[in-house]
């Protein structure tokens, strides 16, 4: 086992990401020991099987919601905001099986989904902008003026 690597990474990354890195290290160690196994699986043990994965990012001036929505058409995407709750609804579609065309392997899901994200209080729901491209939805929400980090010069008398 490559303990040194695990420890170094843990120091570098924020607490929330430790779990992922620990899993990846574990998997890598496993693969080193047993060789690469071509297991028909999604890439991680804790990957999302039934809903879209999202990131919620807080920047200095804006809040960003990123959602992986492969197979969702822009027309089938519905965004709404109520208070601080941002809801992403949609329908994910892939090619459908037919009478003669059979599914031989599936590692994913299709159908409708709904995901609600609680935005931080600093979000200004009146200033919101959404862009969908290449299967990724990017929602930008401006921060309230008063919550923006600002350096104030204080004169010393």
């Amino acid at each position, binding site marked *: 086992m490559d303990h040194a690597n695990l420890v170094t990474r843990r120091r570098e990354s924020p607490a929330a990401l430790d779990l992922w890195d620990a899993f990846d290290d574990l998997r*890598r160690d496993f693969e080193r020991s047993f060789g*690469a196994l071509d297991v028909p*699986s999604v890439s991680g043990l804790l990957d999302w099987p039934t809903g879209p994965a999202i990131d919620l990012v807080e920047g200095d001036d804006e809040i960003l919601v990123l959602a992986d929505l*492969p197979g969702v058409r822009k027309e089938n995407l519905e965004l709404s905001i109520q208070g601080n709750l941002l809801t992403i609804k949609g329908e994910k579609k*892939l090619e459908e099986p037919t009478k003669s065309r059979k599914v031989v*392997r599936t590692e994913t899901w299709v159908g409708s989904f709904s995901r609600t994200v609680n935005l931080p209080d600093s979000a200004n729901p009146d200033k919101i902008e959404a862009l969908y491209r*290449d299967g*990724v939805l990017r929602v930008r929400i401006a921060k309230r003026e008063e919550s923006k980090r600002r350096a104030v010069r204080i004169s010393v008398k």
Partner: protein
Amino acid sequence: MDNTIARNERRLMVPPVRIMEDESEVLAQLEMPGVTREGLEIKVDGNTLTIDGKRSDEVPSVKYLIRERRHEDYHKAFTIDESVDRDGISADLVDGVLTLRLKVKEAAKPRKITVG
């Protein structure tokens, strides 16, 4: 055998796939959100079909309140057998889904035999 996950210590993600087939073609759909046409490379080398996709969506390096998405580039390798026509592979990338169509060689298709 190459190690798809930990090659060169660079972390790669194996995209989830759905495969369907009928008598004349195999249809594979891979979910690769964040990949553009330019960032996609599909190769056939002997019996191996490899797909590499670079994520082009910018990953902000700021404070994450929720982080569920994987930010790695994609890599997937399929073994294709002799029944697949190497020249009859087509690819299409729409809304983060790569659709591959692999034609089955005429000789490999089932034939009806009429009784004379």
